[in-house]
């Protein structure tokens, strides 16, 4: 088993948080797990990305040259990372902020717009996480919800609920089992 996941966007979109959550959950069921954040000097607005590797064998590098799954949340990261997409790999794009690229058939998820409707644009990342797990069940979704409650334990309960609602919304956007290629 080898799954190399890239999550990328801009500072402030909660990119690193999603990666950490995924890695923290995966540690319980996968032998070797690495998480690696890469962000620029900018606190907001710059590029922010992270990689998660899940493997049954020793991981020689937390940074991969090719990815099995990509979650891209803004146009800058889409143009930067799409060339590194593996043909057979899964690509999810935040349709609210990314153009549909020619030659690839990504899953287009209007995460930012849906997040605004749910009440806070910042939960777009959890909508994308739901869409990723609906397309590829890397970890059990009930574990994600427990993880969200734990990560946001000091925050108010309605913040936690909104995050979970966003995650479930993402799960629903990409109907499970349908071919990964159709638009969400």
């Amino acid at each position: 088993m080898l799954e190399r996941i890239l999550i990328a966007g801009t500072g402030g979109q909660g990119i690193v948080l999603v990666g950490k959550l995924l890695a923290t959950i995966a540690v319980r069921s996968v032998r070797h797990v690495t998480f690696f954040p890469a962000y620029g000097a900018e606190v907001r607005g710059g590029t922010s990305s992270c990689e998660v590797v899940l493997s049954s064998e020793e991981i020689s590098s937390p940074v991969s040259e090719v990815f099995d799954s990509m979650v891209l949340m803004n146009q800058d990261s889409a143009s930067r990372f799409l060339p590194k997409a593996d043909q057979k790999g899964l690509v999810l794009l935040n349709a609210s902020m990314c153009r549909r690229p020619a030659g690839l058939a990504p899953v287009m998820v209007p995460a930012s717009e849906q997040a605004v409707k749910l009440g806070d644009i910042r939960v777009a990342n959890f909508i994308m996480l739901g869409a990723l797990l609906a397309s590829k069940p890397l970890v059990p979704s009930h574990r994600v919800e427990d993880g969200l409650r734990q990560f946001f334990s000091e925050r108010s309960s309605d913040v936690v609920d909104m995050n979970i609602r966003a995650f479930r919304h993402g799960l629903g956007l990409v109907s499970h089992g349908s071919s990964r290629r159709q638009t969400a």
Partner: protein
Amino acid sequence: MKFILTIDKERCKGCGLCVKVCEHSVLKLTELMNRKGYRYPQVSTTASCRGCRQCAEICPDAAIELEGEEEK
């Protein structure tokens, strides 16, 4: 004198300080998002700008320019 307010929407980061400082509610934040995902304000067509420059002066990103138009 008529005043023309222009906002560089790609330069704006949606901080909202201009909207807050305008005493004639000429500016309001909209749902529109620029390329970076920031929501930028729009100049209202009804309220009239009095050319006080406060929005342009407080903008941390120099995204607002103001001109006056007069009959010659």
